[in-house]
């Protein structure tokens, strides 16, 4: 136990030391972080309270149905924490140099596992924890709950809930590596992705919110008649259900019915941690060895993926004369291309993002969002638009933010070569923007078509989407340059670093601002359309211009910061 505490102590001391550094740059970073994280937390708190108030006081959906919605949100939250932990934990538990070092020390494998689990959990879940806590506070403030409710809920309900997601993630990964040593990585990955997507699909199929509202409203106002068969049996075994049941019975003053769910959560958390410890004792070292062997053998297997015209030293062709006009641009492009497609963590994530976008578009296609009152149409347009923005911001966070860090320790060879760093930066910005713009327009135009928006709205969405793509790309590249982690080889860890979280929150604020700019004019537009078949377009000209100017200003500021940072000392 002593060595465990020693290592964890050292880690927290080093974290705090980094946080409390007193030089101007660090102070600026800390203050900016506090401002953005704090602002975001306040925003989430207000949003959570506002939505709770609206659903319970204006829409009168009732406490039971409200908690069912909450359960679905918590399920999404659970999956996000879980996936976040799975993605980062391979790098943290199996590929980190610190693990190599710890393995050479007289510390048991289970303890190393625990140390790295804690490391991984805080690294990949801290931003999500902040969001969850702000939402919980907003929810509690609606019900005027006492302080001890928050204390209890945070430490004995919310934290165990997140821990379950984290432990399940590392257990899953450990078992997957164990299985992969027998059946091979490719087959396992294919099975895993299929199973994961199916589970999420089945969950939403059985607890579809639209279907849920429809079913409940059939019994309106006697919603209780529906209670008997509302929950599918599977849902009752999920931690998100336990959390909402605890909250539901607590806010209704029935503590006796809430306690079993608290006990269920606590027992499951403790049970899973014990199980993880036992499995780690048996399998962690073996799986770590298997992962190390796989890593060592990876380079020996020659990839069969070849594109002759993009190989180094290939004869210049049509592609070169259009896109790679100078030898430097050619060298940089080919390097980035091959580095990307030879790293499975890069192209697999790209594939995953494409699948998520397709799932999103197919979901949109199944909703009937093009009918209703102007307010509903405004809300549905903005919700779809915001979700598009959220997806684009996620793509930018994952693939654009690490672009400068991916220059890695090897950046010395570019920095000491006669390469204009401004050109290098714009080379990155150009390719990142073109790719983000393609994704954005597919999303925006695709969703607008499925929703059934008219041609004018399609233009508005397309233009705003282009502004959004440009700004989010510039913002993530600029911040990625400012927070560059040249020592970090894993792009996933770069994309989940402190700086990345801050940038993502910044992009959420930007998306919020766009929504605020659009909300009133859009409503006016839909109202005009209701009464005149073609009128109303005038309402949207000014907001589009404002969005374009705002986007340009943010993009210019981000590019300035990025350029200055990329030229800074290379340590």
């Amino acid at each position, binding site marked *: 136990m002593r060595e465990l505490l020693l290592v964890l102590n050292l880690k927290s001391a080093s974290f705090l030391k980094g946080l409390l550094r007193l*030089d101007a740059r660090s102070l600026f970073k800390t203050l900016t972080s506090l401002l953005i994280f704090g602002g975001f937390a306040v925003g989430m708190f207000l949003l959570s309270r506002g939505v709770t108030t609206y659903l319970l006081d204006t829409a009168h959906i009732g406490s039971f149905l409200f908690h069912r919605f909450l359960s679905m949100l918590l399920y999404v939250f659970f999956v996000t924490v879980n996936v976040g932990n799975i993605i980062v934990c391979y790098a943290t538990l199996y590929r980190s140099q610190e693990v190599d070092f710890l393995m050479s020390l007289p510390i048991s494998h289970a303890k190393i596992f625990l140390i790295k689990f804690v490391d991984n959990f805080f690294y990949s879940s801290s931003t999500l924890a902040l969001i969850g806590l702000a939402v919980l506070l907003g929810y509690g403030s609606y019900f005027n709950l006492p302080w001890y409710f928050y204390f209890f809920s945070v430490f004995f309900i919310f934290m165990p809930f997140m821990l379950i997601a984290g432990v399940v993630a590392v257990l899953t990964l450990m078992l997957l590596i164990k299985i992969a040593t027998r059946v091979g990585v490719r087959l396992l990955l294919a099975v895993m992705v299929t199973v994961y997507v199916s589970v999420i699909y089945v969950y939403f199929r059985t607890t579809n919110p639209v279907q849920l509202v429809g079913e409940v409203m059939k019994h309106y106002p006697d919603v209780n008649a529906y209670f008997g068969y509302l929950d599918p049996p599977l849902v009752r075994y999920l931690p998100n259900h336990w959390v909402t049941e605890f909250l539901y019975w607590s806010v209704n003053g029935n503590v006796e019915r809430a306690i079993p769910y608290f006990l269920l959560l606590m027992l499951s958390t403790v049970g899973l941690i014990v199980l993880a410890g036992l499995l780690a004792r048996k399998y962690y070292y073996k799986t770590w060895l298997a992962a190390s062997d796989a890593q060592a053998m*990876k*380079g*020996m297997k020659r990839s069969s993926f070849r594109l002759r015209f993009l190989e*180094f*030293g290939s*004869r210049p062709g049509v592609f070169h004369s259009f896109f790679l006009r*100078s*030898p*430097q641009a*050619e*060298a*940089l492009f*080919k*390097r980035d291309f*091959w*580095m990307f497609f*030879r*790293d499975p963590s890069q192209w697999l994530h790209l594939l995953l993002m494409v699948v998520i976008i397709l799932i999103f578009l197919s979901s949109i296609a199944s909703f009937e969002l093009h009918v209703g009152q102007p307010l509903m149409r405004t809300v549905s347009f903005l919700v779809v638009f915001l979700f598009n923005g959220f997806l684009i911001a996620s793509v930018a966070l994952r693939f654009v933010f690490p672009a400068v860090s991916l220059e*890695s*320790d*090897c950046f*010395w*060879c*570019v*920095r*000491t*070569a*006669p*390469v*204009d760093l401004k050109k290098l930066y714009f080379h990155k910005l150009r390719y990142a923007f073109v790719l983000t713009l393609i994704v954005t327009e597919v999303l925006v135009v695709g969703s607008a078509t499925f929703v059934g928006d008219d041609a004018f709205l399609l233009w508005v969405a397309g233009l705003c989407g282009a502004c959004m793509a440009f700004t989010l790309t510039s913002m993530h590249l600029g911040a990625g340059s400012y927070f560059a982690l040249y020592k970090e*080889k894993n792009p996933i860890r770069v994309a989940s670093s402190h700086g990345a979280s801050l940038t993502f929150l910044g992009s959420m604020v930007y998306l919020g601002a766009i929504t605020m700019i659009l909300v009133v004019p859009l409503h006016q537009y839909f109202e005009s359309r209701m009464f005149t078949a073609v009128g109303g377009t005038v309402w949207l000209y000014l907001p589009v211009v404002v969005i374009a100017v705002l986007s340009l200003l943010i993009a210019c500021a981000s590019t300035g910061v990025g350029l200055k940072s990329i030229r*800074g*000392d*290379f340590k």
Partner: protein
Amino acid sequence: MIELRNVTKKFGSFVAVDNISLKIEKGQFFGFLGPNGAGKTTTIKMMTGLYEPSGGQCLIDGHNIHSNSLPAKRSFGYVPDQPFLYEKLTGREFLYFVGGLFQLPPETIAQRTEEVMGRFELGGFIDKRAEEYSQGMRQRIVLSAALLHDPKVLIIDEPIVGLDPRSARLVKDTLKQKTREGLTVFMSTHLLEIVEELCDRIAIIKSGRIIHEEAQNEAKQFNGHLEEMFLELTK
């Protein structure tokens, strides 16, 4: 060929390099010595444009590396203390990449790659990815990349560390030959026997300041025993 004028580097209140000046002529093999943390790598990083000096100027082939960086960078090759390579690229791809950055025509890159392959015996591994390389292999690839564009100046930080005796011999012979052909070498090292074998001139740096400069005498030797002198000066 290389000139440092009152170069200073501060990290906050810490002065890593304190007002140093040096002038190295064409074809000279210059050894830059000093204990750990004396400021050798910081000086080299300022000379190569990786750090911006807090004061003073670094001139390479008459060009200021910071205000006129591109011509300055065209004239030198750099071998860092840690030979970091792109793990997913092969040695040959890395050489083509560096050649592209120096805007060499593909035929020239191909021809020079063949040359360095022979000189540094890269044939056995040049088409494998860098993630498979040992320290010595990486070192040889990086040195090959530094010489690919036929630079006027070579700036090397600890060139022999990690090399087996055969590779070390190859590197030393190449450096000797290149210096005879007119290459100017600025080398930082801890290994005094290398300095005695290769260098025409040395400077010793301690706590960011140059405390001693010496050139070989007519008998092509340094005055006194280099090791004793180094230990005495840096204690």
